[in-house]
């Protein structure tokens, strides 16, 4: 193993099934059903997947969901908007956590 992350590993994701087959099958069904078009289109769900992948910093998922987005007719211009929407929310979340500091200061400081 030359590195912890190798793009070829994505094809072996299913190898994890051997360690807990029933749980894996349940996950596969859940995952597949969640990305079926419903009230949201396939493309909207792929964009959600892309945003989660990016903000979760998962290289496998970013690879997969970028390619899926391209196959949905989206381009890097579309993904550029999506990545900033996701990143700005992430920034907002980080700032919102600072409320804890703000509140603690108010609580303990004179």
């Amino acid at each position, binding site marked *: 193993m030359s590195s912890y992350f190798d793009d070829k590993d994505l094809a072996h994701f299913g190898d994890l099934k051997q360690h807990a087959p029933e749980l894996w099958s349940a996950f596969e069904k859940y995952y597949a059903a969640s990305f079926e078009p419903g009230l949201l289109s396939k493309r909207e769900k792929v964009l959600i997947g892309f945003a989660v992948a990016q903000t979760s910093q998962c290289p496998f998922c970013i690879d997969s969901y970028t*390619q899926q987005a391209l*196959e949905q*007719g*989206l*381009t890097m*211009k579309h993904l550029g908007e999506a990545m900033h929407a996701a990143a700005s929310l992430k920034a907002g979340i980080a700032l919102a956590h600072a409320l804890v500091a703000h509140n603690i200061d108010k609580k303990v400081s004179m």
Partner: protein
Amino acid sequence: MTPFHARVEASFGPLRAERVTTLQINVGRKCNQACRHCHVDASPLRTEMMSDDVVDACLDVLAGAPEIATLDITGGAPELHARFREMVRRARALGRSVMVRHNLTVQFEPGHGDLPRFFADQRVEVVCSLPHYLPETTDRQRGGGVFEKSIRALQALNSVGYGGGGGLVLTLVSNPVGAFLPPRQEDLERDTRDHLSRHHGVVFDHLHTITNMPIARFEGWLKRAQVYDDYMDRLHAAFNPATVPGLMCRHLISVGYDGRLFDCDFNQMLEMETADGLPRDVRALDVRALAGRAVRTGEHCYGCTAGAGSSCGGSLA
């Protein structure tokens, strides 16, 4: 990778054509563009063009076979052939539908500015290449400035009545700009219609998605980018047996500029002529002998069966 013929036989049986209803003629390799995905390797530098005796033979075949409903003219940029307009007129005079694979920008070549009027007068179905509704994406595949020229050419076609639903049919064709499958045809058609209408005032009738074939110039790019194997794996994994009945090779015969016969334009570029024992030259062709013929296949055929499928008429399933 399972050979294509074995994969088809397992789900459909041996791949055989039905009767020929479309005569697709590739009148030459010369083009005013040199697109990165082009399976013909067409460019302004190519000189191969259909000779007079082959043009005459194609028109004779059309005249003698009323079951051929459509003449599909491709290239290169077919409008650059000296007898292009004569071919269209004579096919229309025979009462056949004519489709022209039109790259749009050829309208701006000297002597071709009146093409929209000519197409309208002959009631040709115009099938135009436009990979994407965003300029930078289209220009990456087709060359700098092509999008802007293409929009002006589409506006010229609209101005003579194309794309408005009045019977002059304007079809756009979109190829992915890279090593991935096209989106759902209906989705891209909806987005493209909305975008072109709002930003450019352009209307059209249909949009067809076509998968890039892993041959010729696109194959070279795949290999240089070191994604050839990944792309072939993608095509293979996305094999969809529901696409097989509609494959274009089952309904057309492809004629090369030199008169040779092929099961499709892709086989033509790979020099894979019709199977042994079948007619191999348009100058000695009885079209009825091609009905039910065995189709020659190769690994590139996975490009036509991946996902929703791909053909000269767009997706298949």
